[in-house]
């Protein structure tokens, strides 16, 4: 159980996050939506215990994340950054094995059992054939799955994903989101940020909409992601409709041009 309670964060002058509260239980997939610079990354850093909040708490199973040692926190909550090209071309297997760091004493490296476990996870994600390839030489989608495998071997049950579909092509976005959905049904709590409302509508069980550093809405995707909320979040016209496809009914959002109230926009 992840609980964020009245979280406020400031870098020097002014609050980046103001009084943010929400929670996510096991099996829940919470998507975090909001325009660029709204404080999603800051929120994630606080959730991971990497950043000190000005006020408020982040609790995992009732314990404050800031009171935990790094290895203990890593056993509860894991982080999947945006897939970027790594500085060194580690193999997929070596990258996945970095996930066991919190389980090992400082002077030890992973052993045979860890290798077997890593290979099992790679198999379950369908990328076992890449284990010896360098991470710099695989596609963005494959790299995202590699990072996912690294958090799975870490054994934490809360996964925080920073825009898991950023820089991915259409097919890979779908593949990664499918994995996110599967993780939720396995009992993981997944919190992911996205700039694609359709991903929030299709793959999450709850949505947190952030605007100007505060919670605009939090709750069931269909209830939260109305045309009004989306328009207010992004400052554009958004239409939400139903679409029957592949034997299922989907909620889909489509943006459209809406003449801005000129005076207000110019001031910004």
């Amino acid at each position, binding site marked *: 159980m992840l609980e964020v309670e009245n979280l406020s964060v400031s870098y020097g002058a002014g609050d980046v996050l103001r009084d943010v509260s929400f929670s996510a239980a096991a099996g829940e997939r919470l998507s975090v939506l909001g325009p660029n610079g709204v404080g999603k990354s800051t929120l994630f850093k606080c959730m991971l215990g990497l950043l000190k909040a000005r006020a408020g708490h982040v609790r995992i199973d009732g314990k404050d994340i800031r009171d935990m040692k790094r290895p203990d926190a890593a056993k509860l909550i894991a982080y999947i950054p945006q897939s970027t090209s790594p*500085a060194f071309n580690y*193999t997929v297997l*070596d990258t996945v094995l*970095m*996930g066991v760091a919190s389980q090992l004493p400082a002077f030890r*490296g992973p052993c045979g059992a860890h290798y077997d476990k890593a290979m099992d996870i790679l198999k379950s994600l369908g990328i076992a054939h890449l284990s010896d390839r360098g991470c710099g030489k695989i596609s963005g989608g494959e790299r995202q799955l590699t990072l996912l495998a690294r958090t799975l071997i870490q054994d934490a049950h809360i996964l925080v994903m920073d825009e898991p579909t950023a820089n991915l092509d259409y097919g890979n976005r779908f593949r990664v989101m499918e994995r996110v959905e599967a993780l939720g049904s396995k009992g993981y709590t997944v919190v992911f940020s996205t700039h694609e409302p359709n991903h929030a509508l299709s793959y999450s069980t709850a949505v947190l909409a952030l605007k100007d550093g505060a919670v605009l809405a939090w709750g069931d995707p269909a209830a939260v992601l109305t045309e009004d909320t989306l328009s207010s979040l992004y400052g554009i016209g958004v239409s939400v409709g139903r679409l029957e496809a592949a034997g299922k009914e989907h909620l889909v959002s489509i943006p459209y041009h809406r003449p801005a109230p000129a005076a207000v926009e110019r001031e910004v």
Partner: protein
Amino acid sequence: MTKKYRRRMIVLGLVFLTVLPASFFLGRYSVSAGSLLRILSAPFHPAGLEGVTTEFSVIFRIRLPRVAAAALVGAALSTAGAAYQGMFRNPMVSPDILGASSGAGFGAALGIFLSFGYLGVTVSAFLFGLGAVLLAYSVSRFSRLEGTLSLVLAGVMISSLFTACTSFIKLIADAQDQLPAITYWLMGSLASAKLEDLPFVAAPVVIGLVPLFLLRWRVNVLTTEDDEAQSLGINTGRLRLTVIVCATMMTAASVAVSGMIAWVGLVIPHFCRLMFGFDYRRLIPASILMGAAFLVVVDNVARVAATSEIPLGILTSFIGAPVFVYLILTGGEARA
């Protein structure tokens, strides 16, 4: 996969074990294998060292300190380079990035200027090398920039400051004997390595090497972004400080005894990555062996190739620069 690397590591180990004793035979005074055996068996031989006293002093008083110093410095510089490169997530970083070399260079120049004597110069170089990095680290702690970026910027700043100080010392130094001594020292040489000084190099190098060797798998995790490494359960601040302290101690000790020896810390880790991959569990031992063997070979060339000694720093640059051009042209990653 692992088998391939193990075989290569064994070959590298054998090269190291061949190069080291072979170097005892190289030099202007030729020592036969027979006299070497006689020297080694002297404690058990009735005649003792009789008849081989010259050979004995050539080997133990001249060649052993040099070969040992070259091996220590080579291992230290390449391991420090490998560690710094991982920590800064940049394969183009060399061990002097935080100012250890230029600080040590200034310390030596100051020592020569104040006529400290050989040991005094070494100690002064070592202390100033440490001091320079401590200064760079403290500056970066108060910076509001991101951790490694502020560290690099502070390092560059401190480096150029100490280089300027060295130039100033050269300017005011006595042009007859101090200036040539400083210049020659800065070019890098192991010619003055003596048996008595070995512990002063060996101690800091070994004290720096052991923690890096033990922590080597963790250094892998340090090559990811800071947030990532922390979320994986690593106390990055503490680990980074440990790496800096170890690598700096080794670099400062190396520069103190050998002067400026360029490229070793940059090129050897590169080669080790080409041969052994990126995992620091292999990279650190490989850097130790390859760095030591490389510098012993180059130092052999330095003392044998020409009638007068060629400064080591010049030779490593002659070898290092073309190798580096090759790495740039091939993208530095010839791995299949």
